[in-house]
């Protein structure tokens, strides 16, 4: 039976109706189950989606907001019905579409473990058997008899995840669970998922966190506009995805080019000048900006900024430096190289705007997601020596600045990575 598909999806489509006109005749007919034929105000969140997932595979699902990722999971968990197509799932299905679903604030932690477990599909006896483990994992043992409305949000999420994590399904569907909680909790969740994945279960994991996808999912599915854009080896699919995201940008903006300059493409290049998505700390990163000027732009001011998971980090700003090209004409290229980036593993995105000579008006309006790149690396490469370092490498800090500790006994200690050269 090995190699048999755990999940088989054939031509799934989902149509939503938008807008609700309160027309009495229509409403009443619809209330009695006869929706009037009317194609206006409809949207296909998914269209002709087909794929297969062999048993034991961990499949990542990526795509922009609104690409249909969540709708797909909702269909596979049977929360909502597809409009077309068919799917087959072999094995008990568990889902984490949102931790804490069905928690009642008035009930105690212990009571909520049972209630939530039952809602997620566990039997009472099964919850009883796993109770000790769940309580242990949650770390809220002291508050089991306290109503959860008195919990801190951190405790609440931990307890909720603890219940869900012990569901033990053969097929697990996960949607952005990791968006909640602080960084250390997110790492715990990822750790638990790792464990589940190694137990040979089939997992579908929707996330925007490319680092997590790359680490957990050997296979990846990319949804774009409700259709499958690519599926296969995660590295390949993510590379294609970034390619598309980068070449699509700037998004079609009615204002683009109004000021006389149009940014046609923003590419990220490595030190050799080749397009590249993945970098290591200490690499040079070059941003190449292709433009088309419909008129001569005199002494424009270009402003490039880079953001990480926790917000704006750094940039190259011609206003601050008073370095600008004398003029831009026709089409051409401007490059900016950030040298020896001290960045830690994470996804970084670029924003870009061009102002006129006096800095008063845009010649090209701001583009917020102009391009992105990933920094990767594990504890070994980064010369972190702590036993748990691997779990903390990603998404905690963005940059590294050498430091020293002075202990109470007067000894001075320097981390190995800082000693051996930075970064």
């Amino acid at each position, binding site marked *: *039976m090995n190699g048999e598909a755990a999940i088989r999806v054939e031509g799934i489509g989902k149509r*939503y109706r938008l807008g609700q006109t309160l027309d009495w005749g229509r*409403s009443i007919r619809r*209330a009695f*189950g006869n929706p009037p034929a009317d194609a206006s105000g409809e949207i296909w969140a998914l269209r002709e989606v087909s794929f297969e997932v062999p048993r034991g595979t961990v499949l990542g699902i990526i795509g922009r907001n609104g690409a249909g990722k969540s709708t797909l999971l*909702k*269909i*596979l*968990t*049977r*929360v*909502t*019905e*597809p*409009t*077309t*197509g*068919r*799917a*087959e*799932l*072999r*094995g*008990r*299905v568990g*889902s984490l*579409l*949102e931790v804490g*679903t*069905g928690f*009642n604030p*008035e*009930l105690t932690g212990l*009571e909520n473990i*049972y*209630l939530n477990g*039952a*809602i*997620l*599909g566990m*039997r*009472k006896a099964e919850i009883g058997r796993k109770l000790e483990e769940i309580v242990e994992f949650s770390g809220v043992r002291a508050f089991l008899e306290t109503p959860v409305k008195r919990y801190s949000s951190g405790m609440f999420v931990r307890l909720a995840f603890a219940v869900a994590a012990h569901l033990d399904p*053969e097929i697990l569907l996960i949607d952005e669970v990791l968006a909640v909680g602080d960084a250390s909790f997110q790492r715990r969740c990822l750790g638990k998922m790792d464990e589940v994945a190694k137990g040979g279960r089939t997992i579908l994991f929707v996330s925007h966190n490319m680092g997590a996808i790359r680490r957990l999912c050997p296979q990846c599915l990319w949804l774009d506009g409700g259709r499958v854009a690519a599926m296969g080896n995660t590295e390949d699919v993510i590379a294609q995805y970034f390619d598309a995201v980068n070449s699509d940008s700037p998004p079609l903006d009615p204002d683009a080019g109004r000021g006389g300059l149009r940014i046609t493409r923003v590419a990220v290049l490595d030190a050799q000048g080749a397009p590249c998505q993945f970098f290591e700390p200490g690499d040079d990163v070059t941003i190449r900006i292709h433009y088309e000027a419909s008129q001569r732009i005199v002494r424009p001011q270009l402003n490039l900024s880079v953001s990480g998971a926790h917000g704006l980090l750094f940039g190259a700003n011609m206003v601050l430096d008073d370095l600008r090209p004398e003029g831009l004409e026709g089409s051409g290229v401007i490059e900016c190289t950030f040298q020896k980036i001290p960045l830690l593993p994470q996804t970084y995105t670029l924003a870009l705007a061009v102002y006129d000579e006096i800095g008063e008006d845009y010649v090209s309006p701001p583009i917020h997601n102009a391009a992105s790149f990933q920094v990767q690396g594990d504890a070994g490469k980064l010369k972190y020596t702590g036993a748990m370092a691997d779990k903390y490498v990603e998404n905690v800090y963005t940059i590294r600045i050498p430091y020293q500790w002075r202990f109470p006994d007067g000894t001075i200690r320097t981390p190995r990575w800082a000693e051996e050269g930075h970064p």
Partner: protein
Amino acid sequence: MLNTPVTIIQPSDGWRSLDLRELWDRRELLYFFAWRDLKVRYKQTLFGVLWAVAGPLASMVVFTFVFDKMAGLPSDGLPGPIFYLSGLVIWRYFANALSAASNSLVGNQAILTKVYFPRLIIPLSSCITGLADFLIALGVLLLLMAYYHVFPGIAMLLLPGLLLLAMAAALGSGLFFASLNVKYRDVGYILPFLLQLWMFCTIIVPYSEVAQRGGAWRFVYGLNPMGGVVEAFRWCLLRGAMTGPGNADALWMLLGTGVPVALFLLAAGLLYFKRLEKMFADIV
């Protein structure tokens, strides 16, 4: 791996089937929902479960004063308090179950849009939760009967059957209103008003008075499934003290229309619910 469960997902045309086996598999969830609602109901109240008693008692006092003492309406020879309280006890179970079921889908919106389970469990559990208040109120009624030296006979054994009938009627109409409520919140405004009117049609006038007016009246009165339930409920508990026509034949006739009507309501409610079920998560 021979008994790996296989889930098939595809668009259902028209009605989803009533999957009783799936319902049975998730019976523990039914219990947990009912348990949750019970646990939460009187949390952070000073008088707690006394509120289950206060409501029917207050209505009883008002009805006795207005209908019995002032208007002098007939009550089958029973003391006003037990005549009205008996009607209120079973009626309030029906009304509470019906309104709880009607609000249940909307009230559990967060769960509905995140997790799958047989949707029927939600309104069904509302009808079960109401049983607790019913039993407490029934206890008060028995105490009041003892005070008036009225004691139930062997006919009391019919009570579970009557309760099932009230539950079928409440669940049937509750399913209909719950489905409608998902899309049109107007239900929340109409229902209290509708139940108020329905109550006055059901528990104020004894059936013996209606029966005297002939066949057409009997038939119309019989269309109200709760009419037969209330009458039979009184008959079971209070038969010993009833004077006047208190006649079993008329009662059987009343139940003869009431039972099919309740079953019809249940079937129609189920069909409507099943018809709209697939859209709940999308439009709630």
